[in-house]
């Protein structure tokens, strides 16, 4: 892609035609943000001087091709990865200045891979999400119990609570993990590729659950692979390529054929989704 086209794509996308503001600078409240962070693993830089703000009360979805740094960004936002420079701010303070349990009371994360111990029951696993709220002598308060009940109900797995996690289907198991994160009762929820390995029906079911949680006031951030799911469910989209944010804003404002071709190298048509009236990406093929 030529510099000129890249420039035009970026301008097209970043300037909001209504407000005239670039959405990145649009005044929205943000409890969680990355300020000029550089990220990488053991001498392999992934992102340089990245600025990202997560809008409060939104459902932010990060998309981009494989190895574009989207999961790395999510890991940094959830303090699993220490930035090599810059800082991640949580409620105005550097996230690394908080105690480990304090962060876990404000921000929940569903990691890409977790291990359910052999023979653990659903409720037992979900109850482990209460750890950041517990103390040496206060290991199972009324609030703990209420939070677990609520999390089981919200994810619609209360009927499974006595079952072994090993015996569940993939879709059920993923909802149980979401319940564990919900039991943490954090206003911020970060989800790293939550729908991967699920069939289409279970993907939609889970995304509907996320939308409902978002509607109940939670701020969600998810890394998703499927662009059309992102367009349909996100209230705020962040498109990444080669470790940099290429575009961000409402999917309807951001997703164009040019952007998709620029980010994914995929020629496509963007039409109106007849159901949700969000952008629908149709690949053209070769």
């Amino acid at each position: 892609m030529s510099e000129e086209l890249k420039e035009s794509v970026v301008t097209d996308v970043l300037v909001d035609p209504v407000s005239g503001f670039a959405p990145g600078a649009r005044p929205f409240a943000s409890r969680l943000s990355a300020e000029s962070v550089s990220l990488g693993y053991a001498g392999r830089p992934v992102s340089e001087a990245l600025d990202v703000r997560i809008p409060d009360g939104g459902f932010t979805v990060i998309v981009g091709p494989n190895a574009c740094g989207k999961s790395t960004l999510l890991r940094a936002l959830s303090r699993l990865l220490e930035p090599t420079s810059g800082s991640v701010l949580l409620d105005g303070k550097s996230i690394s200045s908080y105690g480990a349990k304090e962060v876990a009371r404000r921000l929940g994360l569903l990691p890409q891979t977790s291990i359910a111990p052999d023979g653990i029951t659903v409720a037992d696993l979900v109850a482990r999400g209460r750890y950041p709220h517990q103390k040496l002598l206060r290991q199972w308060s009324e609030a703990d119990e209420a939070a677990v009940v609520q999390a089981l109900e919200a994810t619609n797995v209360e009927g499974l609570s006595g079952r072994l996690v090993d015996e569940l289907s993939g879709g059920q198991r993923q909802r149980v993990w979401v319940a564990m994160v919900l039991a943490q009762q954090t206003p911020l929820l970060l989800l790293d590729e939550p729908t991967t390995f699920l069939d289409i029906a279970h993907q939609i079911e889970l995304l509907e659950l996320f939308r409902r949680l978002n509607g109940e006031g939670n701020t969600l951030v998810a890394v998703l692979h499927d662009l059309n799911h992102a367009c349909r469910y996100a209230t705020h989209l962040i498109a990444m390529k080669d470790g940099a944010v290429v575009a961000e804003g409402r999917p309807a404002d951001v997703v164009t054929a040019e952007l998709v071709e620029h980010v994914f190298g995929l020629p496509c048509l963007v039409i109106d989704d007849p159901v949700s009236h969000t952008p629908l990406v149709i690949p053209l093929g070769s």
Partner: protein
Amino acid sequence: MTSLDQALPLEKATSVDFGRRTIAIRRFGGRVSLRLDVRTLVVTAVLLTAALALAVVALGLGEFSVAVPDVVSALLGQSSGAVHMVVVEWRLPRVLLALLLGAAMGVSGAIFQSLTRNALGSPDVIGFNTGAYTGALVVILLMGGGYFAVSAGALVGGLVTAALVYVFAYKKGIQGFRLIIAGIAVSAMLASVNTWLILKASLEQAMSAAVWGAGSLNKITWDQVLPVMIVFGALLVVLSFYGRRLGLLEMGDDAARALGVRLEGSRLVLAVVGVALTAMVTAAAGPIAFVSLAAPQLARRLTRSASVGLVPSAAMGAFLLVASDIAAQNLFAPTQLPVGVVTVSIGGCYLVWLLAREVKRQ
């Protein structure tokens, strides 16, 4: 389990269905609360009772046998003379140490099996005991021995081995499987060093080295009990703060960190406590094998729980070691076997059973 309802002073059952009978205990206006699994509670209580009952029996057994009621009154300080001498002065330190060391091995095994997420990840498999033996051998052969010198040698040998295994297994943090493989390799090398050391020794030295190397509670006196109680107590205090993190670490590094567990710090503290527990046992009684391997898994199967629990493992370890020590003293009386010989036999049976189960499963 319905009869249990009447038997137990039941607290409120949880409103969440855990798939197992679970009770919540809340006291002092909610400042103290606990969630207990009833099956785990019962199994632990039964194991502890059995261990204590065996301990009382053990106190009465021997050349000078004492009836159980007399043992009890001796323990309560109501007897004097010969019975008091035999029960309290001679036998009690040994039986008490069997209980304490057995519990310590159970806990140590549970910590390592949980950290490595592997039923084979116990300190005796990953080379600690062999290294402790090497340290003890060096002291016995080069410096002539003595109980505390040998203990110190074993301690140093075990800790150096643990550090070596850690260094060999380290690759961007510690992974359970690498730790086990590195441990087995280091253990095999040290075993050949040990054999070489014994071959070079005089017959007398080799005999005493071999007895120490099997792990034995013979010749235990009160002098050895007190240090163990202090060290064990201190380690248990640390564990009460860190033990609960084991269950979270089992869910994977990211999940544990996301829930607010500081990963490397927690792992280091837990591993150091596990090593220190084994070091304490080895220093006091030599490398008693297989209790730390078998106790947590046996307890886990009895409680049918997802994770290896520290408390049930401790109860199981205490029970196993007391039972083994009774067998060691009385099977071929008047000849006393080192207790390590019995635990190795029990451990062998356990491994055969485990293998048979795995084969059947496939």
